[in-house]
């Protein structure tokens, strides 16, 4: 009798133990921890403000602007992934549009030809992009600087050529049509409004993941690799492996974004997945600031709006776009946020300095 009672008690205890741990984990995911300074900053008051703004925004924006925000959200996911690779680990990639395209085409092919559910295709897209990144990354990531940039660019171009040539699979230059809306358990995301909440919800989840990553030992490892590969190796960090892994992770993000892009656009064609997009995403990360997670997201919104305001692919817009890119690089190489802050502080302190100067001149 006593034995049975003990066993029952043990099972109850186990169940409670598991629930308790799970509860603690969920709580520690979100709430700050006073004992860990980085966790204290995990979610600031500002973040609730951003969240609120995000939730309410579509209610005041016109339909066209909501569409822009959907697009911005998709690009923001890619930029977030790239910011881990470029902004934190300090490596250059001019071919991320290819992973975006891989995700888009995987979803397109699976849902139109093989009647796979959008959710399944979503997972497969992320996986496909990750696998390609692994295969490409292992040899390429031995390179540094200009050569890495060019090798990734080369990969992006090869991807485009492959897509254009494998007509039977990808529809060649004209692409694939009729991709169904993204849907989960019967709920189809067919309006811009629903897509907006879907994409920004996904983005928020990924941001939480990235924040956790960045504040943990892996985030430190990324920064260490960027700062000094020799020093990182001297403390036991496997530099080559870290580079490949963060490359794969950023590619998975791009694949996820690509999949959602297909579902929003209903078509997939090679035009949108070339060097222009890769350059745009890199600009988002640079403008957002290196070592920053929110910056690239704001930059994504800004640059998507800018590209749209310049009218896409009309004659006058592209040269102006190029000029704006160059100007942004000359004036904001550390990211718009850093410089704006400095300029703002400089401006505000102008009056104080003017007064001091006047006093001295007596």
């Amino acid at each position, binding site marked *: 009798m006593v034995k049975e009672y003990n066993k029952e008690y043990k099972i109850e205890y186990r169940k409670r133990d598991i629930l308790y741990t799970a509860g603690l984990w969920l709580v520690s995911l979100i709430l700050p921890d006073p004992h860990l300074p980085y966790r204290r900053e995990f979610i600031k008051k500002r973040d609730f403000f951003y969240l609120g703004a995000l939730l309410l925004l579509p209610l005041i924006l016109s339909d066209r602007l909501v569409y822009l925000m959907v697009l911005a959200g998709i690009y923001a996911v890619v930029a977030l992934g790239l910011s881990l690779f*470029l902004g934190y680990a300090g490596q250059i990639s001019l071919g991320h549009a290819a992973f975006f395209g891989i995700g888009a085409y995987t979803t397109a092919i699976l849902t139109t030809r093989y009647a796979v559910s959008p959710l399944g295709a979503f997972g497969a897209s992320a996986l496909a992009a990750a696998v390609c990144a692994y295969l490409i990354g292992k040899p390429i990531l031995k390179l540094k600087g*200009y050569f890495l940039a060019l090798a990734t660019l*080369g990969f992006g*171009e090869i991807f485009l050529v492959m897509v254009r040539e494998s007509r039977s699979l990808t529809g060649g230059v004209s692409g694939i049509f009729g991709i169904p809306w993204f849907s989960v358990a019967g709920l189809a995301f067919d309006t811009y409004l629903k897509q907006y909440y879907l994409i920004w919800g996904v983005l928020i989840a990924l941001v939480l993941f990235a924040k956790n990553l960045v504040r943990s030992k892996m985030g430190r490892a990324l920064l260490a690799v960027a700062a000094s590969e020799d020093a990182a190796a001297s403390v036991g960090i496997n530099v080559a492996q870290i580079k490949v892994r963060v490359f794969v992770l950023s590619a998975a993000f791009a694949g996820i974004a690509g999949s959602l892009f297909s579902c929003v656009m209903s078509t997939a064609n090679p035009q949108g997945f070339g060097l222009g997009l890769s350059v745009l995403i*890199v600009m988002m990360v640079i403008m957002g600031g290196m070592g920053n997670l929110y910056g690239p997201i704001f930059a994504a919104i800004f640059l998507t709006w800018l590209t749209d305001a310049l009218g896409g692919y009309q004659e006058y817009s*592209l040269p102006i776009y190029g000029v704006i890119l160059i100007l942004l690089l000359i004036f904001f190489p550390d990211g718009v946020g850093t410089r704006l802050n400095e300029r703002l502080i400089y401006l505000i302190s102008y009056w104080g300095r003017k007064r001091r100067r006047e006093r001295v001149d007596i």
Partner: protein
Amino acid sequence: MTPWVHIPQLLAAGITMGAIYALVALGFVIIVRASQIINFAQGEFVMLGGVVTFFFIKGAGLPYPLAALAAVLVVICIGLLLHLLVIYPLRKASVLILIMATVGASIVLSNTSALLFGTLPKALPPFSGDLPLEIGDIRIAPQGLWVFGATFFLFFALYLLSHRTLLGKAMEASSTDPLGADLTGIARNFMVFLAFGVSAGVGAIAGVLVTPLFYTSYNAGTLLGFKGFIAAVVGGWGKNSGAILGGFVLGIVESTSIAFIPAGYKDAVAFVVLLLILYFRPKGILGSPYIDSRRW
């Protein structure tokens, strides 16, 4: 018919193409020898050489040689402007920013060309007539010989510049040891400025020579620029001779590959060659003074 039958003709085409790649590669290397910057807009210089010549002939009614000369001068000015407006302000910036800035410049140049001169492909008449020369089974356009000749002439001229003149040596010094160059009184920024001008000139000459063979249009520069870069890496990064050799190797490999794979994949061949070289021998065929293979 086995693919091998086509090889001699493809080889000839490859050598012609190779000479063009060699010229574009030379343009890259000139700038690298002065400053370690890779100019993504190099292909645009080539494109502009052809397009501006066409404009001078059709729009301004100049005779062919004069139009070509004027075009080369215009492109040299564009190259110098590129340095003044984009490279010089960013002289202290990181590698990534410089890459992005030259990519931005490439976007500006190619699309401004589309804006000013239209998007239709342009053609120029060949220098010495249309009739192809026939050597055995192979047909060579005489224009190809002009390209070939110009390549070696320019190579020789640049050799004289960098090995026999003080200016050339000063340019090299600013690339290999910027601080030392500064300390010995070499005006480093001016060296880079000149390098951009020379490189633009070489590119423009290449453009004038190559347009009679292939049409040129506003977006031809990008791909040509990348292939030129690949050629420079393949032959030996940072060496003029490497650029020439790499150009021919790339041209031949690319042309002969058509015999074995569908034609649409031709552009991918160049990038595959790049990946192979970077993986197996980053220094390039002739070796490179700039790449330390120990730490690669």
